[in-house]
């Protein structure tokens, strides 16, 4: 009996996985373009794929120009690491790993939604499966990269908000908060803001204020413990270093707002139609939906608050359009919750299942439109060659010039210069930059020597390095010239608080961190191999253990998990 039930329950997961493959078919099978920040996330994914706990290493030695920038601390990587760890180790091709990651990210976005809809809301498989696939499709195609990883948490968070007045209502709010911290910092700020807004409204309108307050306080404590693995390293590094945060331009802040173009975007129109259909099926509009609607309006140009908020710390959200998307997806999931709580006739369920298909198709067109390679006159796909990439790097192009490159295939991604394509200055120590406004290292007078892997002597002489090799925790290279004993800047970013050892020919030597770079006082001959090695610091391990314990506590507190355990023990 039980086995049969397990089998029945596992079919939807298989189905969701197959659907992910089907929906992403153009992405999987064709060479792809890497617009905007896709390359950046591709680099992060590849860095994390080198070890199960790679995210605990603060510096990224492996990708992103191989200069050891501290993205693993400032760009939360737990969600990403969890997904990356599941990628089968068939190939080490960067593009393969990226594609596999996106498939799994799609799959897990759907799975989180499915778990909430089916196991928590108790809607039937036939409703939960199409809705969760629809959710993942919308999510992964409308917002890119980091935002999507943060918004994956919305199903759990929305379910938590709906149950804020209940006993143990804190559990899913905390899970939602923690998951968004694990994915994207700005999204988690928006999540916290939403939670506080909900709390205020609860205080005004609900009778059981005490319980709500207790739940809020509890979820605050639990989520800060659960997110300790993210928050503690950020705090440690920002206090001991002056970090160059991503560019937040006032102009972008004032002008990147959702406007009427809404109506000319097929995906947004489809989302709006799904929401409208959901509201008319469930014949109600919940408090969550109303609040989500107002959040969405705040991200549009219907208001002009951005003009005044641009001089406040709110500037860190960079683009107010993020608020629109946050509100939109919160609204979408609240609508899905309402929909799956509605009793539907068999016929209605059939209509629902089949009307999801055209909605998904619309979005699949946009995947093809945005990412697929263009086609030349002879009908061949236009793909960048290795030579294109070499030329690109030697011409010292950087940043968003990457969009001028043609699509990337597996063979182009295997190129040695592949990791030199983009070199954001984000999270570099400010002192490593000549101009703190440079957004790319190559365009910065000081930063370019690091990006080009040059050793700088105390007299300002630049010396090329060769045999530059990088592994998850070490970078090694040789100098191309003989250098007398003097103060040398190595082409690796240095942060106070990280654990670094520098070795010459496997012999440990002293180093210091000056101007955001690792300095040594040594002479170098042509045969001297310089090795820089990083280790996981205590301020990564201890918060990690705290966070793991928090998760254990959350799971043990869950009735469903408890009964599952007790059953296991009985058998």
């Amino acid at each position, binding site marked *: 009996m039980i086995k049969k039930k397990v089998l029945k329950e596992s079919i939807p997961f298989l189905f969701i996985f197959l659907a992910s493959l089907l929906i992403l078919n153009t992405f999987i099978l064709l060479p792809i373009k890497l617009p905007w920040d896709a390359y950046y996330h591709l680099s992060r994914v590849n860095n994390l794929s080198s070890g199960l706990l790679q995210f605990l290493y603060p510096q990224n030695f492996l990708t992103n120009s191989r200069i050891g920038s501290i993205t693993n601390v400032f760009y939360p990587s737990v969600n990403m690491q969890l997904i990356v760890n599941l990628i089968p180790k068939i190939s080490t091709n960067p593009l393969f790993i990226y594609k596999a990651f996106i498939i799994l990210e799609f799959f897990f976005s759907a799975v989180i939604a499915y778990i909430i809809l089916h196991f928590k809301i108790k809607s039937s498989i036939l409703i939960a499966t199409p809705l969760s696939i629809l959710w993942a499709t919308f999510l992964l195609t409308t917002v890119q990269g980091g935002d999507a990883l943060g918004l994956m948490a919305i199903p759990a968070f929305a379910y938590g908000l709906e149950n804020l007045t209940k006993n143990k209502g804190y559990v899913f709010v905390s899970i939602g908060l923690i998951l968004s911290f694990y994915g994207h910092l700005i999204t988690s700020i928006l999540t916290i803001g939403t939670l506080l807004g909900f709390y205020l409204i609860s205080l005004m309108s609900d009778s059981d204020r005490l319980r709500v307050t207790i739940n809020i306080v509890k979820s605050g404590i639990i989520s800060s413990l659960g997110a300790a693995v993210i928050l503690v390293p950020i705090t440690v590094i920002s206090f001991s270093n002056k970090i160059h945060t991503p560019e937040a331009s*006032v102009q972008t802040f004032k002008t990147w707002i959702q406007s*009427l173009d809404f109506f000319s975007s097929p995906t947004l129109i489809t989302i709006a139609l799904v929401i409208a259909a959901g509201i008319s099926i469930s014949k109600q*509009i919940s408090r969550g939906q109303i609040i989500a609607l107002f959040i969405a309006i705040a991200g549009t140009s*219907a*208001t002009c608050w951005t003009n005044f908020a641009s001089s406040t710390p709110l500037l860190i959200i960079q683009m107010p359009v993020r608020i629109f998307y946050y509100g939109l997806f919160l609204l979408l999931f609240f609508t899905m919750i309402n929909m799956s709580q509605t009793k539907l006739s068999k016929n209605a369920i059939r209509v629902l299942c089949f009307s999801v298909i055209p909605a998904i198709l619309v979005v699949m067109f946009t995947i093809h439109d945005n990412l697929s390679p263009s086609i030349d006159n002879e009908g061949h796909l236009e793909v960048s060659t290795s030579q294109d990439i070499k030329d690109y790097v030697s011409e010292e192009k950087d940043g968003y010039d990457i969009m001028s490159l043609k699509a990337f295939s597996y063979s182009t991604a295997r190129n040695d210069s592949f990791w030199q394509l983009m070199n954001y200055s984000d999270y570099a120590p400010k002192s490593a930059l000549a101009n703190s406004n440079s957004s790319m290292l190559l365009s910065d007078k000081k930063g370019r020597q690091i990006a080009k892997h040059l050793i700088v002597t105390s007299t300002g002489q630049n010396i090329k390095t060769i045999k530059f090799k990088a592994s998850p925790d070490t970078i090694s290279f040789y100098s191309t010239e003989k250098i007398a004993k003097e103060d040398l800047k190595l082409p690796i970013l240095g942060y106070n608080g990280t654990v670094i050892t520098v070795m010459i020919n496997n012999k440990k030597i002293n180093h210091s961190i000056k101007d955001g770079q690792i300095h040594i006082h040594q002479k170098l001959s042509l045969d001297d191999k310089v090795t820089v090695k990083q280790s996981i610091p205590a301020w990564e391990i201890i918060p990690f253990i705290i966070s793991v314990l928090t998760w254990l506590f959350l799971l043990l507190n869950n009735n469903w998990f408890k009964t599952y355990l007790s059953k296991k023990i009985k058998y």
Partner: protein
Amino acid sequence: MFSKNSTHHFFQSETLKEVYTFIGMLLFSFLLLNVLLIIPIRFNGDSFFHLSRMESIHGNPLNFLYPQNFLSLGRIGGTTNIFYPVGVLNFIVNLIPTNIGILGTYRLTVVLILYINILSMYSVLRYFIKAPLLNSFLASILWGTLIITFDIGTIGGEILAKIAFPFVAVGLYYFKKRNGWILLSFGLILSISSHILTSLFLIVFTLLYLLVEFIKTKKNKLNFVVKGMKAAIATVLGSQYIIFPMVMLYANNKINTPPQMASAFVDYQLVYLSGIITDPTFIVMAVFIILSIIYEKKYSIGILLFTLSGTTAFIWPYIFNHTILNIIQFPYRLFNWGICLAFVFAIITLSRIQIPIQWKKVVTISLLFLCFLLGTAIHKSFFSKVSNDTGYILTISKEDVIKSFQEGHDGQHLGEYGSFTGTIFNQPEVWSLMNYSDYSPSEGLNDPQTKFLFWDQKAKNIVAHRLTKNANDNIPTTHFKTTASEISFRPTKSISKSTIELPVMGYKANKVKVFINHSEIPFTIQDGRITIDAAVTAKDTVYIKQFIPLWRLIPFFVSTLTIVVLIFLILRKHLFVKSQTFWSKL
């Protein structure tokens, strides 16, 4: 006792609810237009034209009776206030206190324009159709949002005439059964008081509608004709204050009407299907029109015809390119008016549906959201440019304004400047930023197709405020000062006795006097300019004074009287449905 209690209850809930609704609609208008209200705003050509029109009538409710505009649009005495009807605009603008500056006035005027549009729809639905309160509220804010976003680039012209749409629609709706003619003529007068072309459309539409109704009428055809005559007479009398002065000036002068390029008429401005589909306002209106057709299971053929005729579906613009029809400038206007009127009819039908209780919240929230989403168009049109480096809002400077005046810019350059702040209007030259040649005397222009006076070899001297001696010697002026009724200036050098064309437009039939240092001198009108034959020294001040002519005053009294009588009739003839029971009796 019982009846007393019920009145008490009535005051407690119903009336109060009604009052809250009015306040709610005002709040909504402010909220929707928040972008326009708070930050410096950008002006494109037509918005600035309407801002200038407001400047010329603001401050005194009777200023609009002066035929010539001395205060804005180049300060050269053009007659836009005659040819571009100012009736409704004058009413709105003069509700606003004078001490908040013209930019503040503009902002509040736009809010009031939106509010009055909402009110006109609301009063029609609530008091003449007797729709439920929530329906009337939602329908009217949706209507207000749609038309304000529709016309967002040029608030002040066509949108004012939209006030008439609900009245015309309900007037036609009630024409046979009840005294709809009163509302119909009231609506038409409102429209003629706002925008001439829209009025032409409404009149043609009304005639076609009534013709079809007349053919369909089986009995009492005489009564139908009598009602039609009443409506026509009331409309003509009530709009005399707009029409008569227009005819008067047009008969006595050769007036340059807005230039119309034949290419624009037939070419790109036609509405293509793809254009309709990507315009949110069209989609929303179309959805409601379709809903009403589904609900009532019939539709008005006239609307469909009008709507389609403004698209590329019909070829008529190629055929009528060089005919009088050219005055509507762009055939797509027919589509706009048609779909708006169709929407009003749809709303009249839909607003009578009782929304089930469980749906009320859903419908309210969704429509509010839709309104704010549509409102994002306001940002697009008015939000200022932002500096790339500093992130500050770019504003137009005093130097920009003076430079523009000295270099003779024409109004096409408005988009290149930054946003306008209130202080920039302290600079009188700001009113020379725009100088359409519309409605100026033809003989004042070298080329009648010229769009801006600054483009024209002959007319540019007027805009630059220069005196023209013997038709070839141009002398700049200083101390150029204007009020609503007076322009004064000094020449920069002494001029011996000769014919001097003053930098003020001259229209025959106008009542104008010219003074040099307070002594009146005779003048003629040459080249569309006021011309004197005198000697002027650099110390002399020349004054040009205008007076309200009789042909402006008498029609004004006639029209005011007619409108008062119409309002009285509306209130007396039980068109104003007082209660639900009254409605059921009909």
